[in-house]
């Protein structure tokens, strides 16, 4: 990611989980095709029983299902280590846990998503360079509500502020 590009922190929520999956796939493809520059993306699903899990992640290269420690991106670190460990990141999460748990604690986004999503719904969290905003908006066509905040760079503090702002924008 370039240092002088402002970043968008986006949270999108979905009434239908598989439509979120569809948009997630589209987003990852855009990243893979180089049409957007992203720090990462995560698909969060709350099942009918109310259990939240990170169903999939994507990294800055548009790779789904993070396998290694590098390039996971800030977004993936937004969630509790147990959540990550239990889902797609698997064993690799161990090395990341310490690094990203701090961000999660600061941002509290895991809890916020848990609160915001009713059972049987889904959300996407993504960070990308602002130039790609229109492209991303087109990709996330099935979201019932999106909220975006802008930050200067992908740092933990900036992310915390951006997520707080984006979360607030989801209300109402």
């Amino acid at each position, binding site marked *: 990611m370039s240092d002088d590009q402002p970043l968008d922190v986006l949270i999108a*929520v*979905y*009434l*239908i989980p598989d*439509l979120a999956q569809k948009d997630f796939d589209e987003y990852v493809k855009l990243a893979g095709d180089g049409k957007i520059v992203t720090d990462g993306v995560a698909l969060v699903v709350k099942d*009918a029983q109310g259990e939240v899990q990170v169903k999939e992640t994507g990294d800055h290269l548009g790779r789904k299902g993070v396998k290694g420690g590098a390039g996971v991106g800030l977004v993936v670190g937004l969630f509790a280590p147990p959540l990550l460990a239990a889902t797609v990141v698997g064993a690799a999460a161990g090395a990341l846990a310490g690094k990203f748990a701090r961000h999660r604690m600061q941002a509290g986004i895991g809890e916020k998503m848990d609160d915001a*999503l*009713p*059972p*049987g*719904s889904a959300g996407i969290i993504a960070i990308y360079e602002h130039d790609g905003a229109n492209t991303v908006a087109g990709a996330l*066509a*099935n979201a*019932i*509500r999106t909220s975006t905040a802008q930050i200067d760079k992908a740092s933990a503090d900036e992310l915390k502020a951006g997520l707080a702002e984006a979360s607030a924008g989801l209300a*109402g």
Partner: protein
Amino acid sequence: MPDEGIDRVSLPIRRPPFAGATKRTLEGSVPDWNQASHVQPPEGAPNVLLVLIDDAGFGNPSTFGGPIQTPNYTRLADNGLRYNRFHVTALCSPTRAALLTGRNHHRVGFGMVGEFSGPFPGYNATIPRDCAPFPRIMQENGYLTGGFGKWHLTPDNQQGFSGPFDRWPTRLGFDYFWGFLGGEAGQYDPLIAENQKIIGVPEAEDGEQYYFQDDLAEKTIDWLHRVRSEKPKTPWFAYVATGCSHAPHHVPRKWSDKYRGAFDRGWDVMREETFARQKALGVVPADAQLSPRNDAFPTWDSLDETHKRLYARQMEVYAGYSENADWNIGRIIDAVDEIGELENTVVIWIWGDNGASMEGTLTGTFNELTTLNGIPLTPEQQIGLLFKHGGLEAWGDEQLAPHYSAGWAWAGNAPFDWGKQVASHLGGTRNPLVVHWPSRIDDAGAVRSHYTHVTDVGATILDLAGIPMPDSIDGVEQQPFDGVTFADSFADATAPERHTQQYYEILGNRGMYKDGWLLAQRLRRIPWDLDPEKLRTFGPGWNPDDEPVELYYLPDDFTQSRNIAADHPEKVRELSELFWEEAERNHVLPLLGGLTSFFGIVPPIPEESKFVFRGDIQNVPSGMIPRIYNHSYTISADLVVPEGGAEGVIVAEADHLGGFALFVQDGKLKHTYSMLGVLEYTHAAEQPLPTGEVNVELVFTADAPKPATGGEVTLLVNGEPVASGRMEHTVPGRFSGYSGMDIGRDNGLVVDRSYADKAPFAFTGEIKQVIFDIAPHMSEEDAKALHVHAAQALAMHAASA
């Protein structure tokens, strides 16, 4: 009492003359046991089970080609008769009034629903004594009579403890009644009336979730078993009216999940497939054409994927809800069979009272009360609020009070156009009828196409029972039925068609049928549009004859698809004149007499503004709570808080989808106000309540006396403010269609879910009294303005009830 010589045309039947002899002592006296006997129905009179499903369309049940599986309805139809030209009035109470009285709905005061009693004879929601319902006639002729389920014929403001009770079911012909008095009920938390008392919100006894329809079947069966244990041979009449398929669409998931994916191809496809099945079944003539597509409803293909999935789920729930009704009615029929009486029981089962309802608006709604309160919500808002209140998985659960999209109603009324409220079109007036009577019907599985109307049912049942129409009841001369018997068509497919002429009118939508011709004039208002400004266009200065005219000849056009008005101007004129004659004769005039408040005609302002609740008062019906809407009010409570503190609800109305609660939690006074689940406001004291005698007060100071006003809330303890806050919008018309108010607890679904696990969260201290002052410091002018609004809001609710 011997049958011969009984005068059944003057009711109640007199005691027969004493045929014995009396002397000074028993010596020589001759007894006459007839003096101590009771009248019996005429010899051979059958049992009668009359079933009415709510808010459903001609094309809903599989029995008539629809996509909703109704095996019990079908088994009766296959062993009985399907009537495919049976008609209703196009609205809830009016159809029920016409059904039970055998007279046209306006003639018995029900041009509108029971929630709105208007100032004209056709709209006063008060069945006149000279139009006694036919169950009263059966009762007076010795039948055992029971009513179960939805009633909707008692005026909204007469449903409490103080009566009057003369328009309750037990005073209109039913020995026993169990159900709900209003137009709708939550299936998980209905407010139940039994006989002449509101008995509360039931709870399941086995730890399972309570479900009204299951209980409805069980209560009906229990009544049947009880009366049969005491009177093994006396004929009975049971009227069972389901709350289904009226909103809120509530059904356990196991029922709705059966339909997962069944409606993914949308309402346009559903309509076409239903029509094809209807033809195959023979309930629609082979040469009929599907009524033209109505542009009021979006094409399925025009919807985005999220809305397709949302709407499909709405219909899955509606279908499961309806199938459950079929299953529960099937249990009642099985019970009749088990006691060996199905052979000689006439079952008359009507699937729908007004076509399917379009009152969910095009989007459907998470809370039907938003529509009824006139709160327009955009599709985005609807989805956002659905998301907030549990998401798509919650559709059908108690978390929501849902109603599906109008598109499904339109498709459910296939092959006809429009639906509920639209009395000019068959989508609102033609519903399935099945008649089952094995001992008399030998043409099992046949379709009858006699033009029949809901007013005919009473005359038919009396005809079957051999009971004459009485001249008088209780000394009151009775008006004749408008309906006519079609009993002979049970056994004879060629029996003459007697109902040759019928007017229709609901909310200005008009129809005039005569000898196959139907004049139709639909008001230029979409049924879900309750905008007061729009409604006022039909006030003084409006010429009803300027509305567009359509003319159909139904014998050649089963589906009302070919408007031939331009080819037959004389027929148009003839039927138009006939309509006005019928309208005058039946008290239809003035048109829209049920919406008078929109035109400045409102009831007198009530003098009472202070209501004191002492003691353990629970389950005040929603239409009878103090009207705290749209202006300032105070709620004051005198409590005794024991040492160690108290907790629980002081007063609560309705639930989290509309209602308020004043309660003590964690020792602190709190207030929660749900603006129909759209907005929620909470206020809480920081300090615990003191012990001993304590006065707590909630003061709402409105910004202005106006609809949905915002204002400031202050909580006070012993006169000292302890919390305050603002409510930007308040409920303008009504919190709930069915949920009641409780002192000292929160029965049923709760207002604030933080105490749901302790529900009903009864107050652990003592409540000496709760006082509502609903008109503090209001000017006469403001009071009048608000009164007008209140009447309008009530009418708006009524229009969709």
